């Protein structure tokens, strides 16, 4: 039972354009959603998060949107840079369990 899904395994965008990474979830008990970025041979690093009581959180070039009714969140990166090329994992957590549930990841390639 995949509670967090990233249906696009890969995404390619041109430098300077917007990258939109999508994530869907099924568990309405999740109260925090996070995006992690992972380079090869490194562990994931935290990028940005959003509480379930909000619908938008912005940090520089990165914005996360949450649509609770659709159980959908997205990460927008604008403008995209070649250094953003990595695997992006969506994750969700329910504070009463403490388990961080990850999606399968989306590989983003930003072309110069």
């Amino acid at each position, binding site marked *: 039972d995949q509670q*967090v899904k*990233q249906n696009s395994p890969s995404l390619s965008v041109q430098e300077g354009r917007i990258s939109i990474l999508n994530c869907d979830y099924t568990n309405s008990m999740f*109260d*925090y959603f996070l995006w*992690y970025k992972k380079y090869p*041979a*490194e*562990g*994931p*690093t*935290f990028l940005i*998060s959003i509480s379930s009581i909000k619908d938008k959180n912005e940090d520089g070039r990165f914005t996360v949107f949450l649509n609770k009714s659709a159980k959908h969140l997205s990460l927008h990166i604008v403008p995209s840079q070649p250094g953003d090329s990595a695997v992006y*994992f969506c*994750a969700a*957590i329910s*504070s*009463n*369990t*403490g*388990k*961080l*549930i*990850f*999606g*399968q*990841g989306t590989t983003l390639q930003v072309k110069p």
Partner: protein
Amino acid sequence: GAGVSQSPSNKVTEKGKDVELRCDPISGHTALYWYRQSLGQGLEFLIYFQGNSAPDKSGLPSDRFSAERTGGSVSTLTIQRTQQEDSAVYLCASSLLGVTTYNEQFFGPGTRLTVL
């Protein structure tokens, strides 16, 4: 300061052998987590420790997997009688506070396990 470290970085073993994977969390972090990432899959939660105790072991794939944490610091994940399907990258993370409150998890670089 030092981040989460894991050793070894790579481990190749033969089917049926036992392996031990080590995780050194960030000093002072009370919670420690183990995940694995199989080829083409997302990160799969295995187990977490609050201090030295593991309240939730439901993520461990089978009874061949066990983990312990001593002194509220170092943790060891042990896989007995390894199988080829155990091949994966095993990631460890730690967080400052316990799991009852959301707080950021910091990940180590992982151990790549290959079972021949």
